[in-house]
């Protein structure tokens, strides 16, 4: 029923082209400074992705997110679930950087750094290598299945699948020591979760970079939908200079276009052919544009050939296009930049001042207080202690906040191995005449015996009998 309703409805407005069957886009390969930059960025980023898990730090993998042990190792640092605030901070910093760079220079992220772009680029290199340049690929698409087509297509898919599998395995290698993982993978001896996640990630890479490509950016990416909110008239965008280019049209070489009343655009369509999302930049800024700058490089090649000045399509700002001065430093950029600086400084200080011991205090909920004898009131707390350092340590508990307060733990000295945790009962005793009513603030301090600077503080409430 509901389905039928939906079908009828969809016939009603056919303007939705979402997920419509599309013409496969075969972007034309171009050469130029921005494409070189992109190649560099692909090599650097994928180099990091595939290489990082292989680095060693002492006895262990340098970057290892050890989920079973609930520890994240990043070079010399080890993070615990208690350090979650740093992960949150990192994500906020990442989001703010995205805002900052978007306000400054548009969709730099999309064009140069987004995994979707980077992996798509790698998959396209393979496609180009096995199936040839654009014209050949289009011809191959149309040609009937022949020996050559099977060979070319087959080798492309084989390479894609191998690359996808390796990518998935590398992904799992961030969570399981990778040298051991690859050895076991070679022997087909992976555990169920490792198998599942490496296939899952490999399949996603293969599908997104091999087949979905620009559709991910157009239909699936949330950033593409809201990035324009961070644009203003001073943001660097890739734009066609309409003033200079129009009226466009073909012409023989060597004539002066001005005499004929023509602009500089020779309407060669190379900018359209080079575009990986299949748009025409001459129609203005479009949200499909991932700012890869392929059209700039393509157009500059043509301008060189025609002996026109470069930059008919270029990085520019709306203000500059209209002949107004552009400002780089403006409130939006300054505010994003300042916030970013504060957060980064905060994260660095926080990480360097991180305590090597963590303590959580829970009051005993069954009994508010107990009268030990006529003179003394006792509260019981349950402490969860975690030794975050990589060496065995002993700790002693102190308490302050009330006069003549004392604390008893058993054992008195708490010993914890590297990364060890323990639950300890602490009994806090206060003379009856020093405490009245519920909710008196006290503070626990856990101090390492070998190094007093290693400590953790935690506040709690001490409950006493209400005065008569």
């Amino acid at each position: 029923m509901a389905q039928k309703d939906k079908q009828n409805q969809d016939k009603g407005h056919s303007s939705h082209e979402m997920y419509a069957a599309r013409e496969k886009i075969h972007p034309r390969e171009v050469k130029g400074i921005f494409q070189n930059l992109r190649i560099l960025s692909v090599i650097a980023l994928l180099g990091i992705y595939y290489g990082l898990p292989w680095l060693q730090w002492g006895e262990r993998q340098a970057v290892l997110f050890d989920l079973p042990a609930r520890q994240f190792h990043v070079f010399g640092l080890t993070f615990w679930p208690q350090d979650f605030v740093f992960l949150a901070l990192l994500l906020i910093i990442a989001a703010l950087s995205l805002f900052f760079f978007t306000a400054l220079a548009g969709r730099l992220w999309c064009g140069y750094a987004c995994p979707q772009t980077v992996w798509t680029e790698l998959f396209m290199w393979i496609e180009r290598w096995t199936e040839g340049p654009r014209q050949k690929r289009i011809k191959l698409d149309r040609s009937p299945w022949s020996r050559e087509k099977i060979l070319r297509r087959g080798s492309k898919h084989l390479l894609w699948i191998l690359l996808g599998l390796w990518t998935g395995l590398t992904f799992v290698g961030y969570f399981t020591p990778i040298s051991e993982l690859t050895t076991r993978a070679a022997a087909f001896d992976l555990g169920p979760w490792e198998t599942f996640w490496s296939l899952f990630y490999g399949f996603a890479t293969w599908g997104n970079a091999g087949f979905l490509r620009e559709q991910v950016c157009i239909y699936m990416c949330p950033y593409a939908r809201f990035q324009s909110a961070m644009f203003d008239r001073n943001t660097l965008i890739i734009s066609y200079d309409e003033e200079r280019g129009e009226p466009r049209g073909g012409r023989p070489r060597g004539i002066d276009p001005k005499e004929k009343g023509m602009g500089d655009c020779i309407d060669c369509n190379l900018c359209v052919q080079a575009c990986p999302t299949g748009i025409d930049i001459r129609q203005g800024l479009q949200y499909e544009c991932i700012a890869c700058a392929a059209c700039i490089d393509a157009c500059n090649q043509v301008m060189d050939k025609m002996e026109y000045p470069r930059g008919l399509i270029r990085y520019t700002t709306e203000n500059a296009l209209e002949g107004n001065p552009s400002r780089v430093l403006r409130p939006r950029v300054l505010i994003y930049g300042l916030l970013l600086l504060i957060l980064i400084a905060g994260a660095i200080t926080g990480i360097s001042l991180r305590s090597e011991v963590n303590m959580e205090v829970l009051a005993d909920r069954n009994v508010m207080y107990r009268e030990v004898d006529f003179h003394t009131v006792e509260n019981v707390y349950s402490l969860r202690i975690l030794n975050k350092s990589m060496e065995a340590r002993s700790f002693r508990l102190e308490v302050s906040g009330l006069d003549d307060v004392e604390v008893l733990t058993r054992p008195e000295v708490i010993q914890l191995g590297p990364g060890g945790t323990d639950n300890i009962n602490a009994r806090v005793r206060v003379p009856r005449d020093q405490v009245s009513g519920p909710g008196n603030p006290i503070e626990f301090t856990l101090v390492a015996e070998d190094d007093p600077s290693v400590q953790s503080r935690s506040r709690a409430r001490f409950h006493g009998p209400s005065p008569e």
Partner: protein
Amino acid sequence: MATNEPKKDPRLLRLLGSTLWPSFLVAGMASGVFFASIDPEALRLETLPGVEISRMAGYTIGFFMFWLVGLASSLLTVLLLGSVGSRGR
């Protein structure tokens, strides 16, 4: 693959794309936050101490539960958006 084929059923793809995908993103974030503060091992001891579930299995089950919840919400959204469209226009 789905490249040069004639128009098959874009509605199904569109439905999947606008439900599976956002719920996947949200499930990833939600499981990150959830498991940072809650150890699946502690959860198991509290609820099903008799059943052997490894931490990795715990994480995976949690992730798929979040995904299912998100998927349910996305599906409802699609449903509601659809019905408003047919009456309002």
